[in-house]
Every structure is written in structure tokens, then in C-alpha cells.
């Protein structure tokens, strides 16, 4: 027992150092993702890492997080600065405004953040307060992404969300009023959901003043509570998605990514960094990162995270090097998530002309032409292509 624990420490130590030095070798902008793994309770469809929040637990976690930040700070070069910061969860709003104040201040002091950086916090309606908003304002948070899911009480009840529709309205209104660029997450493909009820949720979000909408189809992944006994009667996702692709652009929201619509200039720069394979420093228990052609994940339980951070500063639990052909294929898939698609020059420069040709030929040969939009400069998916993106990606992955 003791020796296997020791080995693990050695392993974490080794892996974290490796990621740290990758961080050190980048020059220029990078993104930071910070995971806050606390929830009031686990939603039945969620397979994400989270634990119930306890006052002492949050405090302890924040200490560890700070330690982890310090660990990576030591590797950072002078040139590099964070262009985006994203606090995701879990439910980040379960941290108290005071805790937020401390965390944001600590980040500001120990991570070089660009003056123009986009800083996003995920908020859940049941725990988001005006005091959070005020603290975030002071801490330079610019975006708030709210886990609305639906503005229909029946939907929220069925999803076992801890908030109702009026709470969701309040949350969005508060965030908009405080001057944040607000995004709302909405879910479709729910039981008893109709196109009419979906449309009303989308319209309410727009009327409340969001500038960005992320829409997700409910999926029952492995590891969630519903996985063992999936609910029946879930609506087919097609009409909801199809309608949104028609409706949102008419309201000025263009679809810039598979699941994301925004007003001009209001796309999520942090998420866009993912799709462009820009470097991401992932922090916190269950966080993911991407540095120097390596994708990595942190320890996924609070105990492992704590012991790893205490012993060696970082908590990297696994690294997957992605280079060569694998990197090119991954890049193509990620780029095709977005409306900007693959730029031929940039792609061939980064991954080689041969890979570009291979991928382009496959798509030209196997994909229906109304799914692709090709110019002399690049290739992207049409709205129809986005609807069947999985099938297209699996051709080239």
C-alpha cells in the first residue's frame, strides 16, 4: 500500500514536472481552465466529476488550488500571458463571494493575465447572487455562463435541477444588469419537450439579454445516474436543433460552433482556443489541459488531488501525447466544429500539405457536397454539415 502510494507520488511528480516544463516552453498567449468540482447534488444525466460542497471542503480545496497555481507559476516564461480564464464546474457559484474575492485576487497576483483577457465564470441560478456579481466585477470577470437548461418548470423538475424557471430568469437578469456578457446553456431532447416549449425557452433567453447561447442535446453518458436505467420518451433532437439553426441567425446570433450561437464578437474566446488547439493550462481536481502537443488530465478525486498537490505541487494523472498524423486529424475535427473551419494555408503550414490533402480528399469523396462549404482559402461545414458532424468527423479522425 505504502509503496504503491509512493510510486503514484513519483508518477505525479514526474508528470506534473513534464507539463510544467511544457508550460515553460510556450511563448505568447495561453488559456487557463480552473475546475471547481462542487455541486449541491449530482444531476441524474451528469457524468462529470463533482462532490457535495462542504464549507471546510471548499476552503481546503482553494488552498490546494493556490498551491497548484504557484507550482505552475514557477515554470512560466516572461513572454507568456493568459488571454482567457475559465472557471467551470461543478458549480463555481457554491463558493462564497468572499472565497471568490480571495481566489480572483490570488489569480491576478500569480498568473500573468493579459489586460484584454476574457474571464468567464459558470454560474448556476440557485446559488448565483448579486454579491457574486459584484465580486466578479471587481475581479475583472467579463463573461458569465449560466446553467439555465430551460425556462420551463416541468423540464427543470424532470432534470432534477435545483432551480426553477423564475430563479433562472433572476440569474440571467442579474448578470445582464451587472454588465457581464452573458451566455445561457439550454438543453433539448428532453422528455415531453415540444418545439413550442423549446422555442419559448430560447426566446426568453434572448429577451433577457443574453449575447451567447450554448445548446446541448441531453445525452446519457456512461457514469451518470440515468445510465443504468435510461428514462423513456425523450424527444428526438433533430427538430430543436434544426429550428435553432433557422431562428437564431435571424436574431443576429450566428452559429460559430456546433453548439454555440452568439452576437457578433461575443463568441467564447476560451472555447475557441480549444478548437484551435491553443495551449490550455488546466487546474483543479478533474481538470484537463493541453500544453506542448500533450493532452493531460488531473487527478479526478479530491483525495488524490490533495495528496498529489501536497507532495509535488501539480496533480497531473495522465498524459496523452498528440502529434504527427494524430494531431493533424484532431485539429481538422476541432476546426470543423467552428464556422471558420480549416484554413488551407494555416493548416498545411502547421500539419503539412500531405495531411491536408488526405483529409480534404476524404471529405470530398465521402461527404455529401451540401455538407461542406469550400473556397480557395478553406473548408468548413454548412449548417447541414453541422447537423451530421459526428458522421463527418468520424471519416477523418
Amino acid at each position: 500500500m505504502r509503496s504503491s502510494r509512493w510510486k503514484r507520488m513519483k508518477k505525479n511528480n514526474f508528470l506534473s514536472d513534464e507539463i510544467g516544463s511544457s508550460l515553460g516552453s510556450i511563448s505568447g498567449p495561453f488559456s487557463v481552465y480552473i475546475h471547481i468540482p462542487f455541486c449541491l447534488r449530482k444531476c441524474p444525466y451528469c457524468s462529470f466529476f463533482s462532490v457535495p460542497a462542504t464549507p471546510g471542503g471548499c476552503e481546503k480545496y482553494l488552498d490546494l488550488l493556490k498551491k497548484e497555481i504557484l507550482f505552475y507559476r514557477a515554470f512560466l516564461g516572461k513572454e507568456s500571458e493568459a488571454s482567457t480564464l475559465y472557471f467551470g464546474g461543478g458549480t463555481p457559484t457554491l463558493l462564497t463571494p468572499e472565497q471568490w474575492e480571495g481566489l480572483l485576487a490570488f489569480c491576478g497576483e500569480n498568473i500573468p493575465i493579459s489586460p484584454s483577457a476574457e474571464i468567464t465564470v459558470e454560474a448556476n441560478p440557485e446559488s448565483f447572487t448579486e454579491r457574486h456579481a459584484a465580486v466578479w466585477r471587481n475581479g475583472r470577470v467579463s463573461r458569465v455562463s449560466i446553467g439555465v437548461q430551460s425556462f420551463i418548470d416541468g423540464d427543470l423538475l424532470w432534470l432534477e435541477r435545483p432551480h426553477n424557471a423564475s430563479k433562472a430568469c433572476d440569474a440571467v437578469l442579474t448578470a445582464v444588469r451587472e454588465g457581464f456578457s452573458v451566455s445561457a446553456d439550454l438543453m433539448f431532447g428532453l422528455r415531453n419537450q415540444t418545439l413550442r416549449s423549446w422555442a419559448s425557452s430560447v426566446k426568453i433567453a434572448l429577451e433577457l439579454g443574453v449575447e451567447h447561447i450554448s445548446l446541448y442535446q441531453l445525452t446519457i453518458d456512461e457514469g451518470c445516474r440515468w445510465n443504468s436505467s435510461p428514462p423513456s420518451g425523450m424527444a428526438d433532437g433533430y427538430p430543436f436543433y434544426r429550428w435553432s439553426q433557422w431562428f437564431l441567425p435571424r436574431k443576429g446570433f450566428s452559429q460559430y460552433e456546433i453548439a454555440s450561437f452568439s452576437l457578433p464578437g461575443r463568441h467564447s474566446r476560451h472555447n475557441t482556443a480549444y478548437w484551435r488547439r491553443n495551449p490550455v493550462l488546466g487546474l483543479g481536481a478533474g481538470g484537463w489541459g493541453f500544453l506542448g502537443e500533450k493532452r493531460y488530465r488531473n487527478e479526478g478525486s479530491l483525495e488524490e488531488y490533495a495528496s498529489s498537490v501536497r507532495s509535488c505541487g501539480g496533480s497531473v494523472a495522465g498524459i496523452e501525447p498528440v502529434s504527427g498524423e494524430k494531431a493533424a486529424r484532431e485539429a481538422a475535427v476541432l476546426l470543423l466544429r467552428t464556422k471558420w473551419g480549416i484554413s488551407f494555408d494555416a493548416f498545411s503550414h502547421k500539419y503539412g500539405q500531405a495531411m491536408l490533402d488526405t483529409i480534404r480528399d476524404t471529405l470530398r469523396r465521402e461527404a455529401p457536397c451540401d455538407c461542406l462549404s469550400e473556397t480557395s482559402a478553406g473548408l468548413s461545414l454548412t449548417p447541414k454539415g453541422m447537423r451530421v458532424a459526428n458522421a463527418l468527423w468520424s471519416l477523418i479522425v
Partner: protein
Amino acid sequence: MEQQYIRNFCIIAHIDHGKSTLADRLLESTSTIGLRDMKQQILDSLDLERERGITIKLVPVKMNYTAKDGREYVLNLIDTPGHVDFGYEVSRSLAACEGALLVVDATQGVEAQTLANAYMAVEQGLEIIPVINKIDLPSSRPDYVIREIEDVVGLDCDHVILASAKEGKGIDDILERVVEKVPAPLGDREAPLQAMIFDSVYDNYKGVICYIRVVNGRIRAGQTIRFMATGGVFPVEEVGVFRPGFQPCDELAAGEVGYVVSNIKTVAEAHTGDTITDNGRPAASPLPGYRKVKPVVFCGFYPVERDDYPQLRDALEKLTLNDSSINFEPETSVALGFGFRCGFLGLLHMDVSKERLRREFGVELVATAPNVVYEVVTKDGGLIEAHRPSDFPEIGEIQEVREPVIKISLFVPTEYVGKVMKLCQDKRGTYISMDYLAPDRVRLMYELPLAEFIIDFHDKLKSQTRGYASLDYEFTGLKAADLVRVDVLVSGEAADAFSFICHRDSAYHRGQAAVRKLKELIPSQLFEVPIQASVGKKVIVRQNVKALRKDVLAKCYGGDITRKRKLLEKQKEGKKRMKQIGKVSIPQEAFLAFLQVEEDEEK
């Protein structure tokens, strides 16, 4: 034992009419088996038989019996396989006997199978002793059954034995009657050896064991014998009798039944019906009635796991050591990979073989729907034996197609006659005759294409007559029919695995069923996929698999790209394992489902 004290007899009975239990009682009564060693249905040689309660063939047994006249007799019980697939084996077993017990269930009456075998016994000159079994059951109606045996079979039932094998009633009467009625075997013990093989089995230690009835002469260890049909010459290593295990003895002489072991490696060298003679002093001619049985029903056997191909081959080889009527040859299927095309005597034979492969050799396999062999005469006068649709030439080159036909006789309660006639007509049957066996039972005779019979005739007959009909059939040869090959095209490309042969009149109907089925089985693709059925160049049915409308699960938790990529890679892998027909990916399961449900199409 002197010939005059030997009685060789068999039991003719329908499945479930109590043959195995009756045999058990005879063994007990003659103390052939001590009570201590008695297990249920001791002569059912295969586990499978005991379990399914159907007996394909009982092992033979020699019983000693002291009759009421005070003399000791030897009674040899030889079984007849109780299923229509094994008509030839029945005839050989009958040929080894001088008498037969005709066992009829007192609650059921005479069934088609029983009648056919009884007639065969009469034809071969056997003395028939009618036995009505299960008279203990409350629903038994012996009087009715007696009348039926008299009317239908035409046997005199003045001395019918009423028995209950279960309760041991009538057993002594049966033994006594066998001694009294069944003639003692004839044959000249000093003549050159003639012994008929009525069965052979493979034993891991002894090699092939031939079950024989000595007709003339004598056979003993050390003798050199010749198999007159195959020409094989072997030394006799051991002769013996069935007790019911193998018990060696010095010699077997004319009239006796027993076994011979002579260093033969496969049962294919010892055909049922062949005559064994002395190599040094051969008989002038073989015993009559020998023929080589030919498989009539074919299907593909494929290992569930592709890597198990060699294992399946070994298992089939071992199985044919035991059962030379099975043949097999390698075959490749686009859907199922490497496997074997296997020929069987009939559907039950096929089923049992499949089950034995599974149980005795531990091979999990997929069986394709059974089919028959067609003869195709081409316009340039050639003759093609078509085992599968792809063997058919282009429609323009075909002069005539011939298919195997059977004469089927059905015993049906009058209330179901209409339904059964409809069934026969649906199956392209040609009416031959109908006669009343009893006021409420009818015998229907039809000529039926074997191909139609093997699809699902049995099941349909059972369900439409609630199990009250029974049938027997015999092959009557090949007959020309207006048969066509229906091709299935997926996205314009012919998909071999899905084509089939059927009558021109049902081409549209079955083509539609196949296309509909495929439409369900082929998942949506990026493109709309037309599925067509065609005869020659002419498309007769078309349906489209609609193009994929939506396939995007966008969730990408906090940048867990790895997970997303793995999912996509898995999807791509899955696609690689699918069979590509043009641009269309068809999952393995679709082929399997198609092959296995083909028989349901017409329902």
C-alpha cells in the same frame, strides 16, 4: 444361439409415443439391465436426445428371455430412427429385422410418420405387432385407435396389445408375442458371409464400430473382411453383442445381431446398408437395398468469432467421423467471413448437428437459412448444380431451372383441412389426393417443392393445426419450375449476400419483404441509400434509407478533447468493421439478422 431361438425386431413409433420408455421396460423385464443401473431412457445414446425427449436412434440391445414355453430366447431390439429425415436408415434397420412393434399412442392415434414406416415394414415382409401405449392416461381412447390402425394401416387388431410402458402394463404380453409371432431368422450359417451394416458409430478408442445383422455365414475376430460397396478390406479385431454396452463374443452367425470392430478410421468407409463379406470366400453378390444417401438440405455454418474457424473445421471433421451423411466444404461469405457449406438429410438432422457441434465440440456458430440445390440447364446445353444464388447464370442464359420436389402426406383433423390446403397452396404445392382415414381425420397428399418445405412449413403446419397434424414425405426427384434469382442492390450495387432464389410469382412479394427488412437493418448514412430488388436487369421493388438527419453530440466538457476524439475513433473503427458496399456501410449484425430472419419474410 440356434437360429430358431432368435427374434430380431424393431419398434416403429411416432415421436412422443413412448418408444424410449417402452424400451426401458423391456430391458427391465428381461433383466438385461439391473435396476441399479437403470437410468431413464437408457438407450437414448446422445445427451441431446435424452434432453429434448426426442429419440433419433436408440442403441440396439440383446435381451435374453425365458418364454412361457420354458425355452430361452434371444431378442434383439433394433431401433428405427423416429424422424422423416432418416428414411433410408429406417429401411436398413427394418431390413435387419423379421418383426416390428407398431407402437401407437392411445391418446393420439396413428401419425403420418408411423404409417410410412409401418408400410415400409410391411413391404419388407416384417411381422407387425400392434401395441397401443399410454392406456393409463385418462384421455386414452384405445377403441378409437384400434379402429384407426385397422382402417388406416390395414392391420388386423384382433390381438392388439394394450400397454402402458410407464406403469409396466402389457410388457410381458409384448415379449411373449414377439417370441410367438416374429419369425426366426433364416440364413445359411455355412454359406459365404453376408452381413448388413445397419448403423456405424465412431469410438475414440476402437475406431469405427459397425452394427451388423449377419444374414448368411459367420464372422469372427481374425477374419479378413471386405466391404462390398466401398471395396475396403480390413481384419476383424473384435465382434460382440449389445448388452446394451459392447460385449465381445467369439463369433456372430447368420441370424444374429452384433457389432464388428476392424480398425476403420472413419464412418465414411462403412456405409449404412453396405454388405460385409469374407475376403477369402466372398459372397456372390451383396445384399439388396444399398444406396448412398445424399444430403438434400444445405446451410452455411460460420463461427461466431472469426478466429474460431479452425476449431469449427476440426469439429465438423470429428462430427463426420460419426455421421457420414453430413458433408461440408469451405465457403466464404461477405457478411460472415470464412465458414462451411454443409449438407444434411433434413431439417432435424441439421438442427441436431448444429446442436452437437455446440455441445460436444464447444463451437458457437451462426447458421444461415437452409436452402436446396437447384439444377440449371443453360441455353448452350450445360448443366449447373447451383448451391447458392451466385451459382445462377444470367437470366438470359437460363433454359430451365429444376428444383427438388417431395411428395408429402399429411394427417390432419378434418377441421383443419382448409387451412392446411391453403398452406400447401401458398407453398406452391400440387394437390394429389385426399382421403378420409376416419370420420374426423383426413390424409392429404401434395407434391411440394423442397425449398418451400424447408423454409418454415413445419412451424406453420404446427401453428395452424395446433399441433394436431403430422406429416411424412419422400423425395420424388427434380422438377422444372419458373424460378428466378432476385438480386438486391444497395445504392445501385449488387449485394451478393442478400440475393435469393424464388418462384417468379413470389419474386415481387419476397423482394419487397427483403428490401423492407434491409431498410430497417441498414443504418442511416450521410447519403440517401436506395435499396432495390431486381430480377435480371429489371428493378421490381425500391425503398430508400433516408439520409442521416442529425448526428452530433456536441458536449465537450471543459476541453476533454481526448474523450471526444476516442468516441469518434471508436465510431470510425466500428465503421471499418462494417462491410462496404459502394459508399454504404452495412454492419455485420445486419447481415446476420437478414440471414436469420429470411424465413420470417413471408409471415
